[in-house]
């Protein structure tokens, strides 16, 4: 038993350190010691300053993507390329849910905060996996998410954790007791609104966005007061009449009102610029741009919002008037990198579902470069402003990348050590798009077409199901991990896999890259050259991204595979 665990961590500035005398007293009474220490840790506050400085407490994992910069990189260095093959399983948490396990846990001073689909929040001991509390929220049966009743995790700030629900409620839960503190209705689930993302807490607000791009919603990002749950600001991802950008819905009619532009992954934040960056989903109806002529701002864009007011500071659109469902919800990865040919050091790296890898200046949204990272035939390249030079393939022809994209929601990673960007990729994967005119009906799928694979009759879209057998044709494509150089946009190495993957990526200060796969492996590559270092067969699909934390100076890596969260560490 880890009686002295809490002393190993730097206490939050606001929390007075426990006097040594009291600690000693607690440890002398054998029964009292563990109880007191657990209570201490669970009561710890997370201040907004701690979130800003998350990188200096790598023993904690404080946001969905690790830090506001969303690099999914840990500076913990106990696990190295030399000892990674000694990793052993420490504990497993088994979810009581058959939905995809897409949540990334948070860890704060030895307590792990996790969600189980659809909307159960759980606090557990990060050293044993034993549960402190569970708060189960039963979402309304009106909820109708397109793609599973999933949840990607929590945000933490102050003494609360925040959960965005599948029926579009935002719930604040007391981190110590597991009891709800407030609940706010964000949108109407009967119209297809849902929330699947982990919220982002900044300063005194908690920020969320709404999913439902397949149901004719009008997307938005909104911020709520952490203490009261009151809405502070709301940014519509489709500008209304009179607002700049509204003219990009050229039909002149109602297309903008049901134009989608959902938000279903957590944004990033640059505290110096006070800008929060969010990726925006596809325009609706999917696949049938004829019903919504124009560029359809801010679908398939990244928007930079003033974190205090929600005002738009800049935007960059990746796929104007998208016919392919190339949601641009990928995690905005913020990187400070000095390069010879780029004036700004404040960059944003983005491997987009549309198959291009972009480097943007995150101070103003200027396009720096963009290169295809997979086979792309819907555009021949990008012009100097970053706009695609489109080459539509025509009826019954195969478009690359296919509807699931060159990559998708899987968290990428950036390592300041190697200065490389790492992303989960679907290679040589295409789709035949068949647009169909559809009528908007509230709460109904607003699909706008059907899809086919390149091989008629064969399994084409590698499904999200849990089938243990890899059963599609090799011609339909394969998975891979790519290492991309932001200085050139070029691939430095690739690690191809037979099946595709939905897993995110973690890199470490010691150049170990961790990822999972649909094949059921949790594995480690050398981040410098892509060499396989270690693999462990866990037998379920990897649907979240691995993360890392430390207890008593020992480093742990956690990944969800199948229905379980598996936690690995080095032998004692």
């Amino acid at each position, binding site marked *: 038993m880890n009686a002295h665990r809490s002393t190993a961590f730097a206490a939050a500035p606001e929390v007075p350190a426990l006097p040594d005398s009291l600690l000693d007293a607690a440890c002398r009474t054998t029964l009292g010691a563990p109880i007191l220490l657990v209570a201490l840790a669970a009561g710890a506050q997370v201040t907004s300053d701690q979130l800003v400085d998350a990188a200096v407490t790598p023993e904690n994992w404080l946001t969905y993507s690790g830090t506001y910069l969303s690099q999914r990189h840990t500076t913990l260095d106990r696990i190295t390329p030399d000892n990674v093959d000694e990793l052993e399983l420490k504990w497993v948490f088994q979810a009581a849910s058959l939905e995809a396990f897409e949540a990334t846990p948070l860890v704060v001073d030895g307590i792990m905060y996790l969600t189980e689909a659809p909307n159960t929040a759980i606090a557990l001991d990060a050293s044993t996996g034993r549960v402190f509390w569970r708060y189960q929220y039963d979402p309304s049966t009106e909820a109708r998410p397109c793609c599973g009743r999933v949840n990607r995790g929590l945000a933490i700030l102050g003494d609360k954790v925040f959960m965005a629900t599948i029926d579009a409620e935002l719930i604040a839960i007391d981190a110590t007791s597991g009891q709800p503190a407030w609940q706010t209705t964000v949108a109407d689930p009967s119209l297809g609104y849902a929330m699947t993302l982990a919220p982002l807490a900044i300063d005194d607000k908690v920020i969320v966005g709404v999913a439902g791009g397949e149901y004719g919603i009008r997307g938005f990002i909104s911020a709520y007061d952490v203490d009261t749950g009151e809405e502070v600001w709301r940014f519509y991802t489709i500008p209304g009449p009179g607002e700049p950008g509204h003219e990009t819905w050229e039909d002149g009619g109602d297309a903008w009102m049901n134009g989608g532009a959902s938000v279903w992954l957590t944004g990033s934040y640059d505290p110096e610029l006070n800008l929060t960056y969010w990726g925006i989903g596809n325009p609706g109806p999917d696949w049938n741009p004829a019903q919504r002529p124009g560029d359809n701002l801010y679908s398939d864009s990244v928007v930079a919002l003033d974190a205090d007011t929600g005002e738009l500071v800049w935007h960059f659109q990746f796929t104007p008037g998208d016919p392919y469902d190339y949601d641009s919800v990928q995690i905005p990865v913020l990187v400070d990198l000095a390069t010879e040919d780029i004036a700004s050091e404040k960059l944003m790296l983005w491997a987009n579902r549309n198959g291009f890898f972009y480097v943007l200046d995150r101070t103003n949204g200027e396009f720096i470069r963009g290169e295809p990272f997979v086979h792309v035939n819907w555009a021949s390249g990008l012009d100097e402003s970053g706009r695609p030079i489109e080459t539509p393939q025509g009826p019954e022809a195969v478009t690359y990348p296919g509807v699931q994209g060159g990559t998708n929601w899987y968290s990428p990673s950036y390592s300041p050590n190697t200065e490389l960007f790492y992303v989960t990729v679907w290679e040589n994967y295409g789709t035949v798009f068949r647009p169909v005119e559809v009528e908007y009906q509230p709460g109904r799928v607003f699909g706008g077409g059907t899809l086919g694979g390149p091989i008629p009759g064969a399994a084409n879209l590698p499904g999200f199901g849990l089938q243990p057998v*890899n059963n599609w044709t090799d011609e339909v494509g*394969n998975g891979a991990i790519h290492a991309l150089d932001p200085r050139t946009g070029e691939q430095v190495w690739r690690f191809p896999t037979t099946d595709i993957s939905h897993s995110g990526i973690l890199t470490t200060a010691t150049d170990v890259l961790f990822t999972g796969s649909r094949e059921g492996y949790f594995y480690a590559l050398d981040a410098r050259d892509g060499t396989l270092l270690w693999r462990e067969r866990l037998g379920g699909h990897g649907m979240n991204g691995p993360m890392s934390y430390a207890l008593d100076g020992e480093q742990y890596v956690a990944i969800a595979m199948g229905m379980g969260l598996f936690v690995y560490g080095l032998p004692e």
Partner: protein
Amino acid sequence: MNTHESIGGTVPARLLARTLGLGLFLTLGGPAAAQQHAGQYDQVDIEYGAQIFAQRCVVCHGERGDLLPQANLRSGTYRNASSDRELSRVLTDGVPNTAMVPTGYTGSELTALVAYLRNITTYDPSAGSVALGDPARGRELAEGAGGCIYCHRIGAEGPRFAPALTNVGARLSAATIRRILLDPTGAMLPASRPVRVVTEDGEVIVGRRLNEDTFTVQLITQDERLVALDKTALREYAIGTESAMQPYGEIFDEAELADLLAWLLTLQGFQR
């Protein structure tokens, strides 16, 4: 030890398209070959759907599908569904508190019913089915000239090397089965591809692939053993792209193919 590269003596030679383990081998992850698609819904599925509709839906919906005013299936839109997926769900789950009760259809039946419903106004029931014939004659062909049972197992009988046909009529859509009969190589599922490996100590193993991942492959050998191999420990590893089955359009005429297809669709396993 197994070094034979053909399927053995029991299959009449004329039925063998080519010997296993020879011919074209695929480069993993190679570019996809674009193929033409005949349109959104296959004629074969539409005809199969019409057949099921006649048997199971006309009692309530009428021969033309427009008997129920609240659910006129010829109107082009549905109150309870817009996408094909939603339409399938209505057929499976029914409409609560109405005579449209939940019913367990197989995947092939759902594909067919949706294809038919989407084409109900243009389909002419009096023309009869061209693609679907007489299942009894189909069975005779399978056991006789077609020789299907020399390679395929049905229920508890027959060889195991080729995939069992026991529930093929539930598993694969009518259009997919027809495509397999006409072009087995083009329609071959990855889990069915012939694999030829040479192990580090020189053993040659030829089998049909059942499953594969980045590091391992699982197969059934010609002598019906299940074998799992670590790919990193193999001297050679090749995946064939040509089916052992020959294209049946070269052996049977349209009427015979229709009989065969009708019989295959009756093979629905033991669930019902």
